[in-house]
């Protein structure tokens, strides 16, 4: 069933805003999504009704806060197909999730002579933590290259994985929109005795996800990209891995006992959640999951496929070869993030003109400088969709782009 986008739009207060006298056209959800009333209300209710620290108080509002906090964990875990809620660690964002793995599992298990396989399309969050480890430990980084069709070039995969300990790959590129074959990649990693870390930041908000089917070892994602609040994200990892990993941050909550000369750690997942957590943000994260489920992930994906197709066609019809699209043409292997450039006009300039018309798109390197160098450009503009976007938004984008092209015409 098609989404009733008009109704959905009305559930997002920010989308009622005007920019320079124009209704806002928000096309930057790949960077961060807007929030529905349901999420804002859940957080507000928590602050007004049962705000207290968690896992500590005997009194009633502390019990309520703890129950709501842990209920949110279970919702998120179930949403991604985790078989056990203890596998879900709350962190600030996907970036912290990946760094957590780099600081704990990787530093406990990798050293000089070991190799990690990455791809040319990774976000800095899935590059820099491994470069830091490589610098510190002499771990080798290997790179899966890209085809001219903006997909991963897997022809040398076996060679790259040979002797590797970890494969780090994004389930969906935030620049190209490319959906990578996660299950196949994980299987290849496992066949070579390597673990697989999936950066699912761009995938989980848009496509029904089952980490067990992926057979992944680590999965990182952020709440703010799936209608949830800022300040919270999650690391999912297999229970045995979490249990064997050394702790990351030290402090309250993550301990079982502390004496002057030693400490012992709490059970997972709390072992990795030192200090007062993002309590109300977790509750908002849970509310976002409820919201997505109330719409249906299959419906969201369907809607985005149609809208992306519509957008690609509209851009092609209007601009043809004057506008280059960086990303796969095949809708089956791409999400709703469309990177583009006008020949001879810088992304920053185009985006500035679009802002005048209330059209919000991102310009820049999208935290993927290695990829931008592969593409041979310093920056692209990127429009990205979510369930609250419709064809009218795309039409506004095209109209604004026409104006931009004219403005910068030589």
């Amino acid at each position, binding site marked *: 069933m098609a989404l009733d986008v008009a109704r959905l739009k009305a559930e997002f207060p920010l989308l009622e805003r005007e920019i320079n006298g124009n209704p806002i056209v928000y096309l930057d959800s790949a960077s961060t999504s807007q929030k529905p009333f349901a999420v804002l209300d859940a957080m507000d209710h928590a602050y007004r009704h049962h705000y207290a620290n968690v896992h500590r108080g*005997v009194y009633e509002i502390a019990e309520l806060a703890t129950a709501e906090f842990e209920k949110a964990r279970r919702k998120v875990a179930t949403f991604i197909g985790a078989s056990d809620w203890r596998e879900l660690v709350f962190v600030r964002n996907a970036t912290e999730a990946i760094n957590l793995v780099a600081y704990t599992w990787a530093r406990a298990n990798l050293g000089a002579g070991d190799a990690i396989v990455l791809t040319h399309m990774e976000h800095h969050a899935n590059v820099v933590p491994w470069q830091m480890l490589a610098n510190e430990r002499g771990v080798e980084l290997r790179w899966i290259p890209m085809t001219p069709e903006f997909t991963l070039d897997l022809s040398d995969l076996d060679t790259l994985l040979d002797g590797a300990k970890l494969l780090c790959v994004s389930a969906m590129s935030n620049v190209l929109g490319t959906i990578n074959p996660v299950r196949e990649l994980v299987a290849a990693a496992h066949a070579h005795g390597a673990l697989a870390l999936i950066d699912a930041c761009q995938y989980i908000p848009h496509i029904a996800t089952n980490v067990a089917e992926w057979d992944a070892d680590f999965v990182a994602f952020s709440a703010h990209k799936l209608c949830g609040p800022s300040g919270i994200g999650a690391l999912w990892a297999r229970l045995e891995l979490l249990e064997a990993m050394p702790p990351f941050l030290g402090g309250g909550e993550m301990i079982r006992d502390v004496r002057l000369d030693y400490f012992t750690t709490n059970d997972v997942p709390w072992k990795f959640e030192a200090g007062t957590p993002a309590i109300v943000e977790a509750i908002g994260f849970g509310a976002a999951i409820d919201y997505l489920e109330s719409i249906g992930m299959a419906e969201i994906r369907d809607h985005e496929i149609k809208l992306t197709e519509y957008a690609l066609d509209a851009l092609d019809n209007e601009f043809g070869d004057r506008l280059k699209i960086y990303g796969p043409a095949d809708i089956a292997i791409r999400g709703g993030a469309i990177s583009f450039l006008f020949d001879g006009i810088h992304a920053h300039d185009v985006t500035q003109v679009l802002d005048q018309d209330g059209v919000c798109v991102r310009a820049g390197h999208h935290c993927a400088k290695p990829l931008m160098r592969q593409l041979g450009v310093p920056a692209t503009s990127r429009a990205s969709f979510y369930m609250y976007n419709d064809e009218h938004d795309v039409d506004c984008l095209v109209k604004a782009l026409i104006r931009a092209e004219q403005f910068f015409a030589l």
Partner: protein
Amino acid sequence: MAGLEDLYREIILDHYRSPRNRGELVVPPAHKTEGFNPLCGDEVSVYLDIDEATQTVRDIKISGQGCSISQASTSMMSDAVKGQSVAEARRLIRAFKALMSIHESKLEGEGDGADLAADLDGVRLGDLEALQGVVKFPVRIKCATLAWNTLQQGLDEINT
């Protein structure tokens, strides 16, 4: 909202005020296991003297500090398993944890606890049932189960 009387039954306060089997055993031959409640700081040490031949709990002693619930639960536990076979002790552990978990599992989202009910079947908890009121106070469940988890860890350590 449950009242204080649901939590603090008379028999609980009695065990709290006059805990059974307090003390220590010489290690070895006895075995000592420490348990922690990371939330409130309660600590318990369980000393076990297992008769290897008959696989029975010849003696058990308890030390440590805790609230009335954890102290009473510890005291009742020691009474219940002393002189019993290890197998019976393990059955009691499962039954008691089931009594607590049916509700705790709801809190932690592990289903409706129907599978746990089986563990309770045919086990006579006696005095221990007085602790049932604890399940209405979810934070206190960990107080009640501390001694039992520690006993279980002790039995595991001895067997392996």
